[in-house]
Structures are given as C-alpha cells and as structure tokens.
C-alpha cells in the first residue's frame, strides 16, 4: 500500500505535464462549466483537481482506481478558460499514465477499457504506422457510419482511386502503405521511448485482472480473448 502511494507521488512530481497542468486551483468551476464530460458523466474536473491538489495520496490512489479519470474526452476546453492557467485535461493524462503503470486501471470499468485500446489502436499503430485504415472500420461495429461508409468499405480499392488516393500502394499519397524502413524506425521509437513497455504493462495487469475475475481457459490461464469480450460488453451500472 505504502509503496504504491509513494510511487504515485514520485511519478506525479516527475511528470512535466503535471507541473504545467496544476497551478494553485481556486475552485471557481470554470472548467466544469464547459466540460463536455461533466455534462454527460458523473464527472467534475474541478473536484478531480482539488483531490490531486490536496496531496492526499490515499484519495489520489482511489482516483486512479476509479472511473472518474477516464471520463475526460481530452478536448482541453478547460485549458482555454482557467484563470490560473491550469489544465485539468493535462493532469488527467498524467493520472491515466500512472493508473496504467501501477495497474490501478484494472479496478474500474472505464479503466479496464485501456486493454481494448491497446489491442485495437495499439496494434494498428505498430502494424501500419497509422491509427486507422478503412478496413478497420467494420460496418457491423460502426452502424453510425451509415450506408455510405458501407459502400466505401465494400468497394474501397475502387472508390479511393476516384478521388486520387494511393490506397495501400508504394510512394506518397493518401493512405499509401508506409515503407519498411519507415516502419522499422517507427517501431524502434516505440520501443526506445517506453511505449512497448506500457503495452506490456497493460497486457500484464489485464491478465492479472482476467485471472482474478476467473476469466480463464482450460489450463487455468487467463483467457484474454474472452477478457476482451468481457470488457467490450461491460455495461455502465446506471446513468
């Protein structure tokens, strides 16, 4: 217990985004007033910042284990208005990072979703060097994309050509395939700067959680496909 809280303190103080983002909050509520997440979730950036500012490590730890820090939509509207040059959204980024590094994220429903993002988005990045590819946006998972997208999805190679894109081809242009050398450098950067380590931590803590929840295979090992399915369908209790 004590150890984790000391670790949280060290991590908080060593992150320059934390130094930049928190600067004597006076609780005016200007951030909450326009926060998109405060309107649609039980979330209040002001009280989040008050807790962090209090320095109460037990409360900060509870924050890291809660849904609270995962509600922010990272629009950074809070930054524009704060009369003390604070940026709650930036503090959230720091808290989320620490929550993942300490495993606290697996204690909340919204936090557990990081495993989904790490698998989906994380693998996409490592595979193609971009966050998205038309083939990732499957109409069945994205009904909001509508019939036009369905048409594009089904006929991508032809349709992208009509507007001059270079889908999956060599050379420059829209949606080109990023060459091998660039991808090698890209992945090396991910390794060198600790992103792959973060992926490993998310995987590791998620496995522990799967085990804890009894989501295991016949060999009594965590069944991560089933865990992915579990967190994908985990419902909000009420809103």
């Amino acid at each position, binding site marked *: 217990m004590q150890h984790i809280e000391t670790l949280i303190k060290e991590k908080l103080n060593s992150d320059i985004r934390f130094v930049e983002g928190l600067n004597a909050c006076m609780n005016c509520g200007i951030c909450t007033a326009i926060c998109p997440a405060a309107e649609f979730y039980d979330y209040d950036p002001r009280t989040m910042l008050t807790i962090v500012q209090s320095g109460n490590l037990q409360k900060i730890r509870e924050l890291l284990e809660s849904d609270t820090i*995962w509600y922010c*939509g990272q629009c950074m509207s809070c930054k*524009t208005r704060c009369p003390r040059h604070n940026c709650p959204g930036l503090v959230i980024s720091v808290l989320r990072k620490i929550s993942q590094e300490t495993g606290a994220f697996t204690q909340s429903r919204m936090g557990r979703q990081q495993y989904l993002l790490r698998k*989906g988005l994380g693998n996409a990045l490592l595979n193609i060097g971009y966050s998205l590819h038309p083939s990732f946006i499957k109409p069945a998972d994205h*009904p909001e994309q509508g019939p036009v997208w369905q048409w594009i999805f089904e006929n991508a190679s032809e349709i992208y050509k009509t*507007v001059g894109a270079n889908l999956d081809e060599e050379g420059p242009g829209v949606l080109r395939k990023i060459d091998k050398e660039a991808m090698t450098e890209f992945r090396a*950067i991910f390794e060198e*700067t600790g992103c792959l380590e973060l992926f490993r931590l998310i995987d590791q803590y998620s496995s522990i959680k799967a085990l804890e929840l009894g989501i295991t295979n016949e060999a009594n090992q965590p069944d991560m496909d089933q865990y992915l399915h579990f967190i994908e369908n*985990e419902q909000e209790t009420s809103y």
Partner: protein
Amino acid sequence: MQTETSKNWSQFNKDIANDHYYYLRSCIRQNFFPGSEVAFLDILRNKLGKTIYDDASHTTCAGIGYHCDIVPFETIQALAARHFSLMTEKGLKHAVVSCVTSFGIYSEILDTWNHFPESLEKTRNALRKSTGREFELPENVVHCSDIVYKFRKEIKDQAKHTLTNTKTGKPLKIVDHIGCHYAKIFPERGVGGAEFPKVLTGMITAWGGETVDYPERRHCCGFGFRHYFVKNNRSYSLSNSKKKFESMEPFQPDAIVTNCPGCNLFLDRWQYTLEQIERKTYGQQGQGIPVLTYEELAGLVLGYDPWKLGLQFHQVEVEPFLDKMGIAYKKGDKYKNLDGKIIGERPMVNELNIV
C-alpha cells in the same frame, strides 16, 4: 450575425509561412475525406503556385494513441522529432499539418521543449538511439486551414462560384466548427485566438458567405478519443454533437464547415445516427445539415468537380448545398469509378435526404 473579434485577438497576427511547405497527413482525414487531402495539394501547387513536399516516409503522430493514453508523451515527442528530421533532410522548415490533433500535438511538444530544454535533449537522444537521426527545429508549424486562410483572397480571385444562394442572391449561412486542439490549448497558435478564431470565418466571408454565431459554437464535437473508439462509450460523442445541433438549429444554417477531420466525421455521422434513433434532423426542410471540410469548400469555390473532391464520402447529402451554390454536377457520377462505371451497389437515399 457577422462575427467580429474583439480587439485583443483580432490585432494578433499568427505567423504563417509563405511557401516551401512540408506536408503531414492526417489519419482521420485520409481515411474519411481523402479527396480533401488531394485537393489541398492540388490547390497549393496548381492554383497558388506553391511547393509542398508530400513525403512517403512520414507516419502518424500517434496523437490519437496519446489522447487514448496508450502512447506516452516521450513517444509522440520522438515521432514528431522524426518528422522534423525528415524535413531537415529535405531542407524544409515549414511544416503544414492536416490534422488538428496533430497540430495540437506539435504545438504542445514545441512548447514543452521551449519550457523544458532537457526534454528536447532527451528526445534528441531517444531519436538518435532508435533511428540514428538528427533534426533541426522547424521554423513554422501551421495547420492546413491556416494556409487556406492565408490565401483566401487569392482563391477568391480565381473563384468560379461564391458562397451565395444563386436562387435568392443572399449569402449562404455557414456554421464554422473549429477543432478543439486548434487553438484551445494555445490560443496564440490559432488565427484569431481561441474564442473567436478567424481561420474559417475568414474563408467564409472572403468567399461571399455569412457566418453563424450560435450558443454552443465552441462546444466540442464529442470525439473524446477513447469515447469513440470504445463502442460502449460512443453515446458520449453522440450526445455532445447533438447538443451542438440543437443549438444551431434555430439559425437554419446552409452548411457546417470544419477544420478538424474528426469533427467533420462526427458532425456528419451523428446527424445520420440521430435521424436513425430519434427520427430527428436539424437542417432545412427536414434535411440534414451538410458538413464540409475547408478544402472541399475551397475546391467548390474554385470550381472543382464535387465527386473528385470526394463529397460522395459524406453521409449527409451535400447536393442541396451544391444546388444553392449553383454548381452543375451530374448526380449519376457520384457513384462512378474512373472508368465511368457505377461502383458496387449504391447506397440507398432515405426520405430525409440523409443518404
């Protein structure tokens, strides 16, 4: 309804380089509005006579991963550094960024390096160690919409159409939606600051349109990064866009124009979704409100073919807007390939014109 900026920011001029650009593509824009990126390069090269380098070797900035919190700050710093290194190799110093979140990311990184030089050193070391690369800091980093804003008058001089309702002779009413990461984090990096950015309204008024100031103008589209990518959180995104639609509805805009590819996507798709789940549309005569990128808007003004611009990629039909502008287009060409054949099974048009 004309928007004026107050003294403070209107006197502030953002430095936008004049030529010799290096282009950085956007994950969302190239996927969903590929024609916009193609048109942007074409306008710059063939209408404005500028040079812009389109590099095959650059990658994502991983900004989406960063704001989904699975990619550390150190990683995006090194990725940005790699892009600056590519620029250095080409002898270029003016980065032009297609994505608003990328633009925000580069701004945040440059600001961090400025305030904490040790993080720049750390990044140099990380880049050197992982790729052997060195880099020089760019002289100018702007968003693509800044460039179009800068040359809005030159575009107007070559205009084939204006933003006027050709039937009534009145200016078209256009809502501007600025991506949050364009100027909310660093107001001094946006044309006109954070509260009344001029980057889009400048284009709209220069090309003959009228801008709309509505209460939820500055509200986020609701992307929320993790909130869209995780299916169960998507209602957050929908609800925020809805808030905007409800607020702009009384003003009956003819179109929405955005500078952020994500916003363009969500303001388009959530209108369709709201029509599907609530049977509600927010545009004129029960229709949706067409949502255009600024490249598309510039392209239409310059007389580009709507389907070459990729307007068929939008879920909310753009034809009512084209009709108002008096643009002659062939409806049938919308779904044709380069050989003039209809591609696949064309999407059904529903009764509310949200395709």
